[in-house]
């Protein structure tokens, strides 16, 4: 831990999220990808990713999350997995799993994939299809999950929760048990990227959120030793913000499809910060010395009320991106905090509109 008074000491990072592509067959209205998606021709090539992963391993990365978009659309995914596995890095595949074949999954397993996480937009076929806008998505996901288990890989069911499916939380638990998952991630949507754009249509009401919290806490207890339930709580109704990734640039970072290195997936929304790409500079240089990474490291950057708050080592002043989105100042106290002067404004939602689908090249509203 960084001492509050010392300048930010930069230790080695633990984890890295690699967004290999923004391409995705689904069009979820809550996607955390930026609203301006990158086309395939902006993606790093195989050699650039391999080189990046080698540098990440040298830097001390222990876990990599291979994500997107849909990472399995990259034809070189098995090569990337093999490279990481050879360096002892733990690989997590984050997939929507609608275009996977058993052979492909087997190739990933042989390359050394450690764990697969399959997202389910709903706990039943109807909801999954309605949210992701992909025909037969639910059946395909169930099939892929079964293959993952057959291949002996541990399975996580990822359930992004919002207004359209919050009533299905108990069914998600049943689904995870039925599929033999060892982990269920009940992840309340975080409102940036597409989700911020669509927040009025996605944000569940207060009572539904409270019912969900009670249910998840009780069930998590009951299923100890059977199913690990990780709960990403909805912070819109909380009094205090969630900790941001254990602190800005504290132990993880992410890389976008074109190789831009970011402290978190929404960091590019902070338009006052400049970020570098792999290839321009060594990864170590970016991690240890770049201005954007150092800007909110440690505690010295904090204004009041965070600076003298006893919770600052718990939540690190909350989310920088949310602060910027709602106040225009990235260093401000996260408005989800009750001590923020902007806290009340948080509940002012724009009028509800149809959900805008996640598509490359922003598109107008559809159903």
């Amino acid at each position, binding site marked *: 831990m960084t001492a509050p008074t010392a300048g930010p000491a930069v230790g*080695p990072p633990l984890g890295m999220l690699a967004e290999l592509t923004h391409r995705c067959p689904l069009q979820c209205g809550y996607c955390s990808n930026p609203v301006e998606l990158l086309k395939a021709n902006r993606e790093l090539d195989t050699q650039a990713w391999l080189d990046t992963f080698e540098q990440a391993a040298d830097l001390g990365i222990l876990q990599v999350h291979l994500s997107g978009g849909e990472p399995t659309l990259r034809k070189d995914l098995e090569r990337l997995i093999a490279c990481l596995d050879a360096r002892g890095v*733990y690989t997590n595949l984050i997939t929507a799993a609608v275009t996977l074949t058993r052979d492909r999954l087997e190739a990933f397993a042989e390359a050394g994939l*450690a764990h697969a996480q399959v997202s389910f937009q709903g706990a039943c076929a109807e909801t999954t299809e309605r949210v992701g806008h992909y025909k037969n998505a639910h059946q395909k996901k169930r099939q892929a999950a079964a293959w993952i288990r057959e291949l002996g890989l541990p399975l996580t069911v990822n359930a992004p929760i919002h207004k359209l499916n919050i009533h299905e939380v108990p069914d998600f638990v049943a689904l995870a048990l039925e599929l033999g998952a060892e982990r269920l991630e009940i992840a309340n949507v975080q409102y940036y990227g597409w989700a911020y754009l669509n927040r009025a249509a996605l944000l569940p009401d207060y009572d539904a959120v409270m019912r969900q919290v009670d249910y998840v806490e009780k069930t998590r207890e009951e299923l100890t030793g059977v199913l690990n339930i990780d709960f990403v709580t909805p912070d819109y109704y909380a009094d205090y913000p969630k900790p941001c990734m254990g602190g800005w640039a504290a132990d993880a970072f992410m890389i976008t499809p074109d190789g831009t290195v970011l402290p978190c997936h929404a960091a590019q929304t902070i338009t006052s910060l400049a970020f570098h790409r792999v290839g321009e500079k060594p990864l170590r240089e970016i991690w240890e010395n770049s201005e954007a990474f150092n800007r909110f490291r440690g505690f010295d950057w904090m204004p009041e009320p965070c600076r003298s708050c006893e919770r600052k080592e718990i939540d690190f002043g909350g989310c920088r991106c949310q602060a910027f989105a709602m106040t225009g100042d990235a260093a401000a106290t996260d408005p989800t905090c009750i001590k923020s002067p902007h806290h009340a404004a948080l509940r002012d939602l724009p009028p509800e509109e149809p959900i805008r689908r996640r598509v490359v090249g922003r598109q107008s509203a559809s159903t």
Partner: protein
Amino acid sequence: MTPFRTRVVITSASRPLVPPHVHLRFDDLRGKWVVLAPEKVLWPDEIGADILGRCTGAATVSDIVGGLAEDYDAPAEQIAPDVLAFLQEWCDRLLLRCEETK
């Protein structure tokens, strides 16, 4: 369809096993033991890592306790409850699996 998993209760006859997808290794850069599991990085202390290293699926909890008692020069009855509690906790987090005695 695979039957639902049930919670494992560790006894002295259990044969705990670190499953293949849970990686226990020494991290040279940081100079300590690390356990890598789905979305988890854990840092067991020396003794914790030693116990986990003995969870091969072949040795019973009694065997493990016996081995530890010998290597650490401590009475088996004294360390057994701690070892059991440790293993139960790791089992509950699905970081250990158990083969019951047939």
